[in-house]
């Protein structure tokens, strides 16, 4: 209980942001919540199961288009978001059964190709998706401030759901099975873990809320086009965030998402023409100096402090 308390306080503090912040701060808050959803979702397949998935962009884009098309057909916004979650989850289940028997690099590429193929299909299916011209969403009759608050709180709810999902997975059977699979898949299947089932569950969970985040993003920005929502960067950013925070931990991805957002914002503001290069330098530095993420650093320091305390106790 004591361990959960600071997390609840932190969530409450973030949720109270609209009371103090301007709309710019709210936009950053919404981005943070979205990044947190993507990073935590990726962490389930990439962190716990150790499968290098690049399918985040596929789930995100699919959710964005599912939400946008449903809303265009007159479905209320929250229902469209829920449906987008389902669409992404079903897609993940079907594709997962097909590609999860691949390992390592081959899985990475097959998952990367999913987004490419969806991008091509979306671009050429003009009658449904508007093709390369993109898709406009119905306008919401609300003041700008109210909208900013609505999307901030919705996205934050999704992020909290992702946190609960991640915590449940880490605590439960699924998390245990996934960690076995990460360490040695053949041995896991030998001792009776249904690896196909658990890998597919992990892939579905990694797609579910990302689909919802895509749909919320679409409602939030009012206009989507294929290269925007299926961008490779959408697949790569969550990986960097998770590595920044600490893979395979519950809170690591959230911390990583916050750290990444701050870096991205600072870099965009100060180095517009070389922002990609600066981001590259940060990533390279991360690999060399923080291989276990911020959480790994914290854990190491904690261990060191404990050791010192122990020694002091012994000498006293």
């Amino acid at each position: 209980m004591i361990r959960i308390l600071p997390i609840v306080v932190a969530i409450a503090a973030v949720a109270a942001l609209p009371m103090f912040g301007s709309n710019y701060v709210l936009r950053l808050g919404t981005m943070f919540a979205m990044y947190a959803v993507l990073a935590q979702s990726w962490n389930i397949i990439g962190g716990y199961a150790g499968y290098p998935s690049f399918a985040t962009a596929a789930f995100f884009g699919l959710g964005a288009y599912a939400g946008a098309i449903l809303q265009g057909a007159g479905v209320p916004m929250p229902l469209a978001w829920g449906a987008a979650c389902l669409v992404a989850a079903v897609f993940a289940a079907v594709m997962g059964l097909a590609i999860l028997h691949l390992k390592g690099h081959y899985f990475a590429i097959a998952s990367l190709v999913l987004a490419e193929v969806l991008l091509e299909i979306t671009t050429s299916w003009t009658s449904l998706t508007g093709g390369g011209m993109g898709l406009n969403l119905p306008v919401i009759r609300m003041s700008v401030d109210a909208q900013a608050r609505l999307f901030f709180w919705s996205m934050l709810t999704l992020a909290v759901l992702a946190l609960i999902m991640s915590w449940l997975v880490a605590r439960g059977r699924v998390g245990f099975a996934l960690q076995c699979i990460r360490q040695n898949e053949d041995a896991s299947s030998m001792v009776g873990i249904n690896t196909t089932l658990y890998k597919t569950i992990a892939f579905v969970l990694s797609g579910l809320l990302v689909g919802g985040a895509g749909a919320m993003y679409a409602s939030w920005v009012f206009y989507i086009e294929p290269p925007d929502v299926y961008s490779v960067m959408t697949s790569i950013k969550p990986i960097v965030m998770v590595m920044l925070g600490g893979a395979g931990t519950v809170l690591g991805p959230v911390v990583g998402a916050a750290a990444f957002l701050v870096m991205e914002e600072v870099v965009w503001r100060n180095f517009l023409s070389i922002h990609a290069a600066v981001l590259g330098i940060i990533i390279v530095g991360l690999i060399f100096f923080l291989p276990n993420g911020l959480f790994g650093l914290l854990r190491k320091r904690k261990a060191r402090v404990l050791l010192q305390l122990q020694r002091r106790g012994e000498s006293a």
Partner: protein
Amino acid sequence: MFYAQILLNGLVLGGLYACIAVGFSLVWGVLNIINILHGSFVVLGSYIAYFAYVHMGIHPFVSVVIAGALLFGLGYLVQAGLINRVVGAPVLTTLVLTFGLDLMLNNSMLLAFSADYRTVQLANPLGTTVISGLVLPLDRLVAMLLACTLTGLLYLLLKRSGIGRAIVAVRMDREAAALMGVNVKHIYAVTFGIGALMAGTAGSLLSLIFPISPLNSSEFLGLAFIVCVLGGLGSISGAIVGGLALGVIQSFGALLIGPQHGLTIAFVLLVILLIFKPTGIMGRRGYE
């Protein structure tokens, strides 16, 4: 006759694809690294050929040597200085590292050369010739033959030379090779250098055919991916078969459903192939 022409176009394109992919495949097979930098290496090779032609009048067929040498040096340094520090790390670490390096290289090229598309306009192009009804674009054909020759030379290097045998030995068993006195770190750097060299030469040959821009690098990277997986990893013959197959698939696909979908068909075929034969057409087990 019409279909023979399409086949020929596909094969000419496929030969160049093979040359793009062969270095990528080598790095993947020996170092177990997906080199995201590969696409930018190809573009850099194209720029070297472009500036050598515009400022010094060196024909791209000749500047292949310059581009190859410069990129070998660059690749050797990148591997020896940076990637060697994390070479045993999981797939994701090296992948993200090369991704970060690619952001840096690509952004530098964008700043130095701008995103404008440039093309090499030859003063005396070889033109085309017609042999028994088949139209042969000579510049492309020579580029493709050169690409095949280079790939063949690489094959010979791996089979016959001492360094080539050391590379193959490291690929088979790193620890055993180290015990036999092979300097593994040096071999890694040489292998990465050769990968970059092949990318640079491919880029310099491609400067005759495709417009040059840093924005193209992801397309070349995607091509290298597909060719490698299509043909199967870890062998030069795999890259050649994969390259030719992709070229032919793309040209017939373009004919059937329109030129803008050629690459999509290749992607879809790739996923289907991966489901049924995860090791590719020529692949052997053990490289997953």
